[in-house]
């Protein structure tokens, strides 16, 4: 088929389309869809007994706020990467709260190291974090996947990784509301580690999941 024929066929019977809302608006829509299932999960697992006390703890609040901001900004970035010609700097937005989150955990680990002689190392296997975060992230992740597939797969690996980071970070916020584990090293390895693992897995599968839609000209 020559190019003129292709153009004629594409233009024939062209259907009207609704332009996608802005990435910020789409992130707000995603958040509205993703938040209730996470809240339900927290209620189903019953909130941790020391939650009121935790909510007075600056480090806990900082880490939860940083994780929440990572989820929101990663969602904005994921939706932006599906818009051709999007500004590049948006992709780096989630790095700011991510650095704050990681920084707080790192600082907590350092403090623990300084107290090593008196209290010992708070580290033991906590495998439950992996399925707990994965399950809590399931609905937000599915909603994210459905929404990013509406964009252009310009950078499929990055888009998928950012989408998974958003879902997993939000799930970790939920997890810390029902899972009483606050030792920085434990949170860093088992919770942040699970978020990083899910992000990496989604990034690796990005090209398989996000492909250019197949167009068959009539």
């Amino acid at each position, binding site marked *: *088929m*020559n*190019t*003129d024929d*292709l*153009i*004629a066929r*594409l*233009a*024939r*019977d*062209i*259907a*009207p*389309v*609704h*332009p*996608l809302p*802005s990435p910020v608006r789409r992130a707000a829509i995603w958040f509205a869809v993703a938040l209730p299932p996470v809240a339900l999960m927290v209620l189903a697992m019953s909130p941790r007994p020391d939650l009121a006390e935790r909510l007075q703890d600056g480090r806990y609040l900082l880490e939860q706020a940083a994780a929440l901001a990572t989820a929101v900004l990663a969602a904005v970035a994921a939706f932006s990467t*599906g*818009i*051709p*010609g*999007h500004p590049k700097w948006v992709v780096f937005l989630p790095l700011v709260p991510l650095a704050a989150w990681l920084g707080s955990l790192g600082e907590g680990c350092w403090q623990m190291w300084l107290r090593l002689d008196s209290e010992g190392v708070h580290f033991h296997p906590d495998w439950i974090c992996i399925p707990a975060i994965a399950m809590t992230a399931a609905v937000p992740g599915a909603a994210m996947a459905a929404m990013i597939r*509406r*964009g*252009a797969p*310009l*950078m499929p690996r990055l888009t998928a990784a950012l989408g998974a980071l958003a879902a997993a970070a939000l799930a970790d916020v939920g997890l810390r509301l029902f899972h009483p584990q606050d030792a920085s090293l434990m949170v860093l390895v088992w919770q942040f580690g699970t978020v990083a693992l899910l992000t990496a897995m989604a990034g690796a599968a990005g090209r398989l999941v996000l492909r*250019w*839609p*197949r*167009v068959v*000209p009539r």
Partner: protein
Amino acid sequence: MREPEQSGGDWAALMRAAQQGDAAAYAQLLREVAPAVRSMVGRRWGRGAEVEDLVQEVLLSIHAVRHTYDPARPFLPWLMAIVRHRIADGARRHARKAANEVTIDVLSETFLVDATNPGDDRGADTDALHKAIAGLPPGQRQAIELLKVREMSLKEASAASGLSIVALKVAVHRAIKTLRSKLDERT
């Protein structure tokens, strides 16, 4: 062809109309965009059939994601991003294809068994066959030479020899039988 910089505003208007289902505007947009895309692709790929394939791929991509264009934003960066990424996809595909293609030398042998590797024995076998053909009765020899050695059709052989087609078929059948028994005796 209009310069893309001058056309960006017009193209944005055409795209806005296309998003609302205006077929004429869409056709005009794609017709105007195609040469610019071809020029961008050509700078990367030179000339050839692959360039036009890639141009068509870009047009199909524009069609597939036309809902991602924000009418409030300029059109050119949107278009350029699609072209740039599709060129990169094409380059990746090309590199993958090149990496998977292996140039194979013509091998002198296929399998280890003697039957598949005639080698120097081929000449000897041919000689034996020629000798066996020469030893055939005249009618059979003529049929074999016309139909098998010179690869004539039955009609042509019939015209050349003056024999009927049936007679030629019988003669060639007998000749092959004779040759087989002669060659079997040798081995």
